[in-house]
Structure formats: structure tokens, C-alpha cells
């Protein structure tokens, strides 16, 4: 569906007005219709235009969510769930208007079951907030997308991060959900048992559904013990290919690496400039190993050997926290370092993922493409998963630059699909990637649409995302 069509969705002004009236009666000053707040809730972080909702409601309980959904559905007005607004593909835009449910006030950690290694949270809890809460108990929640996103949003977008190679993504770490359906019913998808095989796996149907099947009001996630020891370090390679091959060899040999992240030369240069470092300006792998003291030392040593065999190294690593943080500082500052390459520009992120064996080829071809089009676009990759991002620096007000970047992004997706990869490894479909879904999934779209129709027969749950109705 083209963007022009998205903008031209039908709106029933009378219904919107009636719904807002009913919501105002129920929510009072927890209903906001000011333009600034509405626009802030349609934030997209891309060239997709801002499509604000008609109102924003701040629920405090699941019953509030049920009430809001019932009122909206009764008036046939769309409902858009909102966590922290850090999604990247227009997930929270309101192309047909409607009511955004902002989970700012539903940010309680409801229970921590330390011995069972799980906890129950409301959707507005952010990942950093949760980890601060858990720290005293020696536990942590491993999924770390770039932003300090909400657990609700991360669940809805099936988020992942730098730890995915060891701890998986949200799909592997959500145990149960409470969800308000389009009917206004509140259901629990599973019980707290580690395995949810009581019937179809409805928990994971909602994980990654981007708010299009219902509104998540409570999440039970798996936790992990904070490792006794962490070793981390950096390792330069003569080429992106050598770094990718080292990654494959590491994973294939069963070394349980926790993080393995690739920087290309340009990203390293950017980090050196921004963080005042003297990293070797060649492709670089950042690594982390989690486990016992002896275990991480042995894994680090084995990785060092693999790297040396492939012409890389030396692998500089340490188990000392401050030292490690210093080495990893560049990774943490990557985004700001990129912006520093071209002050005033915005960074547009791409997100393809390919089979591991095609990763080197895909990254190398993409670098060539970037050079041919005179773009400034450093590359960072979660290479253990075959997933990498380019950050295209551009002036969003310059139509020629935007057009170049869009065309680049399309070529990149086509390249990934031709290598049997996917158009999005972790950012999601939202509005931005809908058109690629047909190319990638073909007939599966009909199956997805059938599910959408079955669960949301009036197309009111975050409409205009993932599948056209």
C-alpha cells in the first residue's frame, strides 16, 4: 500500500467526536487532545509522515484499557498502543486517526519470582527500569534494543538486541501475556509455567503482532542470573569478510558467545573521532562472554585462536568491569558517533538479516553500493544472527537525498531477499515495510490476514500496520 493511500484512509469525524466525548467522561484529564501531545505520539523516526491520533488516553489499569477499547470499538475508532515511541517503521502512526493508549502510567513491576527466574510487569515498564529493579536480586532481563524501550512495546514488536545470539529475542523470553482483545475481553494467553503448550501458542502470536491483534496489558518475562563473570573485548580484522568468517567459526564451534557485534571501518573512524579513541581503523568485532571466571577466560582464548587463524587479532579482552566498559564505550556511543560524522543530519536505519553464510557477501556489496552513491552510511551488525544495520546520514528536508536513501534501502532489501534473507531482522514491519512483506512472504500474507480478520473483524486494532485488511 502506498503512503498516499495510507493518508487517504476514511475517517468518520462524527464517530471520532463521539468516542472522544465518551472517553473524556470516563478519563477526565487522562485524555489529552492537544496538538503537541498528539503529534508527539505519531513520531516515526523516518521519512514516513507524522500521522497523529485524535486523542491520547493514559490508562492506569487493565480495566481502563478495556473501557477505552470498548468505547473506541463501539464508535469504530482505531486504537493504537504506545510505549515509549521508539519504534522505527511508523508502528505508532495513526493513518486513520483514532485514539492512542499511552502506557506511561502502567509502569509497575508486579511480581518477581526469583527462584523461577521470571517476573510480571505492566507494559510501560522500560527495560532499564526493570534491570535496575532486578539488580539487587542478582537477576537481569537480557533484551536490549538501542532505545530504553518499554517491555510492552518490545513484546509487540518482538524486539531483540546485542544479546540475542545467547539469550534470544522477545519471542524466546515472553512466557505469558494478558491482552485486551477487540471485543474488550481481557484474556491470559498462558500460565506462568515455563512452557505454554496448553493449546495453540497464542502468547507468541501476540509477540510481534505490533498491536494489530489486541492491546497487551501485562507481560510475564523470563529472567536470567547476572553472570558471575563477563569478559569482553575487541578484535580487528583485515576485512569484513574475515570478521564474518570468524563469527561463523565461533558459533559453529559451539562457543557460547553472548554478544558479537561488527563495526565497519567508517563506524570505527566515527567512534574514534567521537569517543577520542585510538581503535585500529579496520573492521572490528566487539565480543562478550558470560559465565564463570574460568569459562569466560577459556572462551575468550578460544575465540582469539579462531581470529588469529583468519588473519585477525590481536583480540584484546578483559574481565575487569571498568576496562571492559572502556573497550565497549565505542559500542555504546555508536549512534552518537554516527551523528557526529555529519552534524545536523538524521540517521535512517536499515535492518536486513541474511543467512549467516551470505552475511559477508551482503555487507560487502552494501558497502560498495554506499560508496557508488556517495552516501555516508556506517555499518553495525549483530553478526551472530546475520543481522546488520546501516545508518544512512541524510538531510530529511532534501528530497534528492531522501530519494537516494529510499532507493538504497530498497536495493538493500532486494539484495537480502535474493540471498534468502528478510527485510527486517528486528525493527518490524509497521507501515514502512508492508510492501516488502508481499515479496518475502507471498501466500503467508493470506494466512496472516485471515488471523487479523478473525481477531479484529472491524480492523480497529492499530490499523494500517503489518497486513492491509
Amino acid at each position, binding site marked *: 500500500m502506498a503512503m498516499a493511500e495510507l493518508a487517504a484512509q476514511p475517517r468518520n469525524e462524527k464517530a471520532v467526536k463521539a468516542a472522544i466525548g465518551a472517553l473524556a467522561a470516563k478519563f477526565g484529564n487522562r485524555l489529552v487532545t492537544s496538538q503537541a501531545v498528539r503529534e508527539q505520539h505519531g513520531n516515526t523516526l523516518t521519512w514516513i509522515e507524522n500521522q497523529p491520533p485524535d486523542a491520547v488516553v493514559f490508562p492506569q489499569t487493565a480495566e481502563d484499557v478495556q473501557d477505552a477499547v470498548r468505547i473506541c470499538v463501539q464508535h469504530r475508532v482505531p486504537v493504537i498502543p504506545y510505549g515509549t515511541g521508539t519504534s522505527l517503521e511508523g508502528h505508532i502512526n495513526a493513518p486513520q486517526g483514532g485514539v492512542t493508549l499511552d502506557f506511561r502510567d502502567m509502569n509497575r513491576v508486579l511480581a518477581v519470582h526469583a527462584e523461577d527466574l521470571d517476573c510480571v510487569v505492566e507494559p510501560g515498564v522500560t527495560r532499564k527500569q526493570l534491570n535496575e529493579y532486578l539488580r539487587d536480586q542478582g537477576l537481569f532481563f537480557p533484551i536490549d534494543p538501542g532505545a530504553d524501550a518499554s517491555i510492552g512495546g518490545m513484546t509487540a514488536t518482538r524486539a531483540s538486541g546485542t544479546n540475542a545470539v545467547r539469550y534470544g529475542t522477545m519471542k524466546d523470553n515472553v512466557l505469558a501475556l494478558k491482552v485486551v482483545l477487540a471485543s474488550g475481553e481481557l484474556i491470559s494467553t498462558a500460565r506462568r509455567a515455563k512452557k505454554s503448550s496448553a493449546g495453540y501458542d497464542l502468547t507468541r502470536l501476540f509477540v510481534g503482532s505490533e498491536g494489530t491483534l489486541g492491546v497487551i496489558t501485562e507481560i510475564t518475562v523470563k529472567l536470567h542470573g547476572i553472570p558471575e563473570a563477563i569478559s569482553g573485548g575487541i578484535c580487528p580484522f583485515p576485512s569484513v569478510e574475515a570478521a564474518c568468517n570468524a563469527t561463523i567459526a565461533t558459533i*559453529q564451534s559451539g562457543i557460547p558467545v553472548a554478544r558479537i557485534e561488527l563495526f565497519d571501518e567508517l563506524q570505527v573512524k566515527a567512534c574514534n573521532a567521537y569517543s577520542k579513541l585510538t581503535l585500529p581503523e579496520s573492521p572490528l568485532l566487539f565480543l562478550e562472554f558470560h559465565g564463570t571466571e574460568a569459562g569466560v577466560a577459556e572462551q575468550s582464548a578460544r575465540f582469539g585462536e579462531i581470529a588469529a587463524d583468519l588473519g585477525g587479532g590481536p583480540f584484546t579482552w578483559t574481565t575487569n568491569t571498568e576496562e571492559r566498559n572502556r573497550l565497549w564505550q565505542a559500542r555504546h556511543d555508536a549512534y552518537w558517533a554516527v551523528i557526529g560524522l555529519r552534524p545536523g543530519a538524521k540517521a535512517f536505519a536499515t535492518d536486513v538479516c541474511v543467512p549467516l553464510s551470505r552475511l559477508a557477501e551482503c555487507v560487502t556489496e552494501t558497502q560498495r553500493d554506499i560508496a557508488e552513491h556517495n552516501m555516508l552510511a556506517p555499518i553495525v551488525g549483530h553478526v551472530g544472527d546475520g543481522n546488520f544495520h546501516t545508518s544512512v546520514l541524510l538531510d530529511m528536508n532534501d528530497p534528492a537525498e531522501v530519494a537516494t536513501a529510499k532507493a538504497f534501502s530498497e536495493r538493500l532489501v532486494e539484495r537480502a531477499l535474493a540471498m534468502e534473507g528478510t527485510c527486517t531482522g528486528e525493527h518490524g514491519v509497521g507501515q514502512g515495510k508492508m510492501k516488502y512483506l508481499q515479496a518475502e512472504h507471498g501466500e503467508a500474507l493470506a494466512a*496472516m490476514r485471515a488471523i487479523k480478520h478473525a481477531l479484529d473483524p472491524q480492523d480497529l486494532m492499530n490499523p494500517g500496520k503489518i497486513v492491509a485488511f
Partner: protein
Amino acid sequence: MTSLLKPRDGKDVEAAVHWALAESKTLEIVGQGSKRGVGRAAQWDLSLDLSDLSGVTLYEPDELILSAKAGTPMAEIEALLAANNQELAFEPVDYGPVFGAGPGRGTIGGVLGANLSGPRRIKAGAARDHFLGFTAVSGRAETFKSGGRVVKNVTGYDLCKVMAGSWGTLAALTDVTVKVLPRAETEETVLVLGLDDATAARAMSAAMGSSNDVSGAAHFPAPVAASLQAEAGAALTALRLEGVAPSVVHRRRALEVLLKSFGEIAVLEEGASRDVWRVIRNVTPFTGGARALWRISVAPTRGHEVAAAIGEGAEYVYDWAGGLIWVALPATEDGGAERVRRAIAANGHATLIRAPAAIRASVPVFEPQEPGLAALTRRVKESFDPKGIFGPGRMYAGI
């Protein structure tokens, strides 16, 4: 005797489903039939036998993925992987012996359709977590694909997860792709002897919360342990460590230190360790036999309370650090359904894996669902199979 449809490829499957749809026939999807006894006792018009859809279609050891036709025997896949020092990390339970048949049966499509996983699930995840992509024929007789060859994607609804554990009631899988992983170089098992169930739960929880990367945590109460090792006679709590030899050794030492306050400790070297975990994986203490077999899933620290609450005549073993309980009960009356479900008290779920058809016809086999969830289940079923031709009634009456 149910008549048989035996397609040779995906096109045949589509044609068969098309025909069944036109003739209003219901179909039971089978591979080798090794799990045929699981589910409510219901009648279907024909069997859709997928065992001719067989063969590994793509295996790239470097890439750690494998694609195969749905009817490919597990034995073939496991042998191929073993030859390359790889494995399916979710360690699927082999239900053959549970139903009195030989070991090494089942197909990859069946394993995924039933979402089978073994002891390593607590570390590596279940079958569905390794299920990357598939081609299937829906109840609309439409062939569709989902997922692919990458380990991570966020392209819409995760249909692999919905297919896993759907027991052949949503669509007929014709081709599947799974993640494979390197096989651990070696393994050892730390045994803690003589613990009661509650103490064992605490010991397993301590081990799981440590940095020792435990890949199996099971507990055999004394009566079952006795059937394992004639001379033991005491309960056994088993914790598995896998990896390269030096790493296994130092983690084993760390675990011995951590657990010595719980009870006497013994260590099983590689061979004996593999034997013990095969016993746990395949529920060997309860294979064959006429007793009803329940599979109960609860929060790990509650496992021992639930088991105790089932009462007289129940024998059980714990896997997944106490979160999975295999319970054998006399196959009389309701096969223990009433007391099992009362013991869980809505804090987990129980599946009746093995029982005579008469019992499976009269009590729910899968955990009964709340009305809201049941309605949602029905809608998901209808979105894949609107006419209800695939195994209607196998999971829930009327669905």
C-alpha cells in the same frame, strides 16, 4: 479401518485437501503415527499420510540450518546431524517407547507439530524456538509459506510458533526448516543423592540461577530412582553440564561446591551421563505399561507441591528444574484427571499423553481453557481451517 490418502509431494497434499474440502471429509494428519495416541479420542474420515514426503532438502552444516520434507524420519535427520557433530538442541522426546513401540520413530513434521522438546529445553528452548520456516497446506487447500532461513525476523505474525504444538489441527506441514547446533564435545552429570522433592527443587533452582550453564535439571524421587539403579534406593537429583572438556570440569567443580550443603554428591562421566539423560528424555520409567501418563507443566518451584497434591498411587519424575512433571496413574475411571487438575489449581497445565481411548473420550486431554481463551483458540483454528477438516476434536471438543 480409516482409509488412506498418501500424497507424494506438496502438490498432491494440496489436491488431497482440496478434495476433502469439496467432499466434506475430515482428515487425520500422520507421519509414522508414533504420536497417534495423543489427543482426544475422535473419529476422522481419512488419514492424510505424509510419510512419502521424505528427505532432507537442504543441509548446510556451516550455516546451522536444515530443511526437510515433513515426513522425513527423525532417525535419518539425527544420524545426518550426528555425522557432522551437530544436533537438534531441543532434544525432542521420543514417544515411541511411551506407546509401547520401538525407539527412533517419528518424523520431523510430527516433532514440530507436537512441539516436542526434552531436558535441554530449560537452556536451549523448545522445538518451536528452533523452527525457522515452513511450507504448509491450509484447510482452505492453499499452499503457504512462512519464515525462512534466517534465525531472526520480525516480519508479521510468527506463524511457526502457532503451527508448533497445533497437533495437525491447523494445516498440513509439507516442508520445514529448523536451526541446528553444534553437539557438545562432552558432558558430565552431578548427582545429589537422597533429597526430598522440596529440597531437590531448591537445589535445582540454585543450580539454574548460577553461572554454570546447566543444560538439564531433573529429579527422581526414591520409588522411581529405585527402578533405575537397583542398588540406589535413594532419590537422585541430576544436573547436566555440557561443553568442551576443560569447561565442563571447572563448572562441575563449581556446582559441587554450590550443592554440597544439600546432600551427598556423585558425578557421572560422559557415558553414564548420556544414559541418564536418555532415560529422562524418553520418560523411560513410564514406558509401555498400562498406566495413564500425564505431562504437567508448572512454575518450577511449585512442582513438588503439585505432585504431592495429586495423592495416593501416583508415581512421578521431574524435569526442567521441577517445572515439568511426568506422572503415572492407574488407568481407571478418569485416569486421574480430576485430581491432577485439582492439584494444579489453575497454576499450570496438564496434558494426558497416554490413556485408553475410553478415558480420552471422556476427559479433556489438553488443559481446559477459560471461555475467552477458548473463543480465541476457535478463531485461530477457523482462520487456518474454516471448515474444520484437520483433526477436528483432537485438541478440544468441537474445535
